[in-house]
């Protein structure tokens, strides 16, 4: 019995150690933790590329194309389609339009990504960093401009006093 006791405690010790060693966290493989994504100056370029990448997403390009071109005279719809583009073509807009929702949310993703870089780079940073900050400022302005064009009331109405779209100035955590 004595001998068994020793063996027992030994195994209990080992198994506990082994079990506790299973208390580990893992890192994802296609994403990185936000605390390390924008931690130093060399990250600024990577994240700026990420801002550009959000611009070439279908939600911004394809849906933007449908929203802007399909109501125009450049397009003639030859065949009926269950795609929401039919509503854009016919001016029968509804507020749950998939293309409007896609464009709207993708635009703010670009703005939020740009804001992170804008907040990270101080105005007395190196020229390279200020160049990148400038690019982000430009992208943010361009997207805001397109949002107003797409979703704001026409400027002549109410002498331009109608609200346009929400402006996201700061990074939002």
């Amino acid at each position: 019995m004595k001998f068994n006791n020793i063996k027992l405690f030994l195994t209990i010790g080992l198994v506990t150690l082994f079990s506790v060693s299973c208390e580990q966290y893992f890192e994802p493989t296609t994403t990185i933790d936000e605390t390390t994504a924008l931690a130093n100056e060399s990250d600024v370029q990577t994240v700026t590329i990420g801002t550009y990448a959000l611009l070439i997403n279908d939600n911004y390009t394809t849906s933007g194309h449908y929203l802007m071109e399909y109501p125009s005279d450049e397009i003639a719809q030859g065949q009926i389609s269950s795609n929401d583009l039919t509503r854009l073509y016919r001016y029968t807009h509804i507020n749950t339009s998939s293309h409007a929702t896609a464009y709207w949310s993708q635009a703010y993703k670009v703005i939020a990504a740009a804001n992170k870089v804008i907040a990270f780079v101080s105005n007395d940073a190196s020229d390279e960093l200020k160049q990148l900050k400038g690019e982000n400022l430009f992208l943010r302005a361009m997207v805001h401009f397109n949002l107003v064009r797409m979703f704001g009331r026409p400027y002549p109405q109410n002498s331009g006093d109608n609200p346009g779209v929400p402006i996201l100035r700061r990074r939002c955590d």
Partner: protein
Amino acid sequence: MKINFIPITYWKRPILLALISCMFTPLLRASVVNHPPLAIDERLISEKPVRSVQWTSNKSLEYTVKGTVISSEKEVLPGVTVVVKGTSQGTTTDMNGDFSINLSTPGTTLIFSFIGYATKEVVVEGAKTLDIVLESDARGLDELVVVGYSAKKLRYLSSSVSTISNEKLRDVTSNELPNLLQGKAPGVVVSSGSGDPTKPASIVIRGAGTISAGTTPLYVVDGNIDGTYNPVDIESVTVLKDVAATGLYGSRAANGVIIVNTKMGKAGKTEISVNNTLGFANATSGNFKLMNSQQLYDYQSTFYPRDASVLNTNTNWWNEAFRTAFVDNHNISASGGNDRTTFYTSVNYYKEQGTLINNDRTGYNFRTNLKTKLTDKLTAAVLFNGQFTKDNLQHSNTLYDAYVNLPFDLAYDASGAPVDGRYYAGWLGRDRENFLQSLQYNYATGKTLRTSLDVNLDYELTKKITLSSYNRVNFGNESGVTYYDRRTKQGGANGGELYNTSNNSNRQLTSNRIRYNEEFGKHSLALLGAAEAEKSYNEYQTVSGKGLPAGHDVMSVATDILASPTAYSEQVAFRKFLGQADYSYDNRYFLVGSFVNEFSSLFGKNNSSANFFQLGASWVLSNESFLKNNKTLTFAKLRASYGTVGNATIPNFASLGLYSISQSASYAGLPGASPFQKGNPDLTWEKVKSSNIGADISLWNRIDLSVDVYNKTSDDLLYQKPLAATTGYSYIWMNAGSVRNRGVEFNLTTKNIVSGDFTWETNLNMSFNKNKVLSLSDGSTTFNPGNRLPIAAGHDMGEYNLPIWAGVNPENGDPQWEKLVTATDGTVTKELTNAYSSVQTTQSRQFTGKSATPKFTGGFSNTLAYKGFSLSAFFNFVYGNWVYNDSRFYFDNDGLYESYNVMVLPKGMSRWEKPGDIATHPKPIVGGNKDSNQSSSRYLEDGSFIRLRNVRLGYTIPVSIIKRIGLSRANVFVSGDNLWTGTKFTGTDPEVSFSRGDTEFTQGLSSIKYPISRKFLFGINFTL
């Protein structure tokens, strides 16, 4: 079977070292001192035959008792354990059911026990020859039920469980356990969203209590979490429903636990069984019918006149897409062993064709379960299962086209070749696709290989302490190929497309347990401690190519990539400690308490471990003196339990704030990083508080009734909350709000007639569940507003929120909806409108009071047996749920899609034709009548149904006949699945998925439905 063992000294120590574990041993030791003598676990007696003891004594009192043990069916029983009461001395019966034991004291009691039979005690005074008849344990109350970490007699359990034997399980023909469980256990709601044999049904136990986490129950196979199995190898399935039973599975027990035990061999004659089932299946079409050419021509003439020449063609696309499908199931198994080693091995082939063309599943399954006593104290079990599954997946819009293609279009040209809709002059259907043409070349297949290896060791340290180590390794490999040939519509644009996906996974799990049993006087106590660790790894890859030569389908012949390849991998770890104390007094009062501490890498760093506790109690009234030997009330028990469990089924890394670095974040060939997921380091388990009160009653040993009432509250619901687009993120994972499920369920089994040759048994089980969202976090009243099934405080989670359809305006045939108008003083009034855009807003949508979850579900079965014949009929039913018949958007569209086929209006429905008509359908207009087919309560239909799930007639051929050809048992049967369904639903089949967390089907939604099959089967089973 003889096995030579390695000498003890070589292996004993390392195994012991590897073996054991437990945090709780110091506590247990203290108990050893305080609580004297022993309790022999029933399981030990029945599962581990005690080796025959060589008994040499020079006392003259010694005498020998011999005898034979047979069953009440007059079959000899090998491997029956014979033990001298109060000792470990004993033997087992041999191949002929004979035993012989030497005894020394007159008046010795012998205990005869065997799995599946009632234990019998016989007092012997002197040398004698005994003929023992063991009654089969038909009532089941004395049956040992494996409830996860321990086994106990059903009679003495304090928790709510349902046990389904292999025989009851396998009346319906399917290779998937969920499909077999449908309607067989109260509180277990199985729903199949599809008749596709590659898509098993989903299970919800006692209502869904989560928003975004899964509702799938946890499967425990042969004592360890997850694992693989095939229904043919299942000995029994036990469903654990309340926390007293599920609690030990802590963070993964919130949705209930399904315990699967595979067959083990029995000592005795080696049995070889061969089972074959063959049959055919057809798709059920219910109340649904599509128009033929004449019908469609007549209908369209009212708003879209066509040239009469279209009537020259009348293609029934539904019939082109569906077929008579074959089902094939063959199984050979061998089992047997001796008093030290037993084995079970089985090979299975299952093939089920889908009723839809080019869709089938083929499964190969191999299992070997080996159990051996290495020494008197150490038992080892090695279980191996390998499964290979080949799927031909439905693809290429076949089902969709079957519903919507026009009967005016030709399927085959004059030469008999399928027409290519893209180029065929005069093709009228919208999608210009003939699936028969593309199916000649296109395919989508999936292959899955899964293996599971278990090594389980039980070591009897002392009479009272058992140490166990249960270990499992799983490997999985899945691959998928989808090929679109350049000659088809799907592959035409890119000159052929090829998609390859693959997935590799492995999982290691070790569960180390210590068990302590103590008995003194009328008290008995069992303590259990366990430490578990688990780690899994998964990797995924996808590659796609384009520009492939016609008919060639490997990646190397592709001339270019279609989309950039992707790959990723992920790991998850769990760790668990648990302790359980199980106390009983005089088999009358039972108390069980447990505590679980668990860690998971899935959760936020601030909350990665959690504690859960459970308490259960029961009182067996019928063992009290005032009820003992009562002829009417033969068994009565009251049960109660309370405790907490958790739900951990969320995606990996849900708690982390992340930047994506995948290709979607790259630009012009440069790697980038863009914000992807908002972090929530406080994310934690969903916590479920659950209480259960139940009673089990038996009258005259003929009527068994179990009733359970439960209340289950889930707090900290895991919710993938959509964020306002202006935050720049799509969603955040959070713990939000609480949901309650309350219900009653009962199971009634009656033996109506038991007279000699004739028996008739009836079972009825029903469960009623009510779901309610109690509160939501952040002061919200509604999550996902504007959704068909939003989550709103005070409402059922399955309650539809839709624009309310107000019928057709009799004056002009316009569609009408209810519009809510809020006056300046805040009063809300309803008015009718024909403008859909004004009613589909979040403000104007209304709760319908109709829910996707049923008011009650259940099953009803009758089994009759006369001599060798048996006849059983099994119904399952669902009542009070509403189905959103989404496909009517396409084939019931009031003219919006004149290039789609249309359903024939079922009885009770009519179209508006002239002013004054009271009709259900608006006037059809080219281009659609004012959005009449948009989402509204119009397509909400009563989903209640009752289905004759199975009828089976079997005949067991008398032994006298088959003995001559060397068989010991033979049985033939004919069987029919899903022969009849009673429902008001207008689609092909009313059954939809009730599972919320289901990714394949949305709760309550019927969309381009793959109807379930009606099967006719013939089977022959025999045992050598």
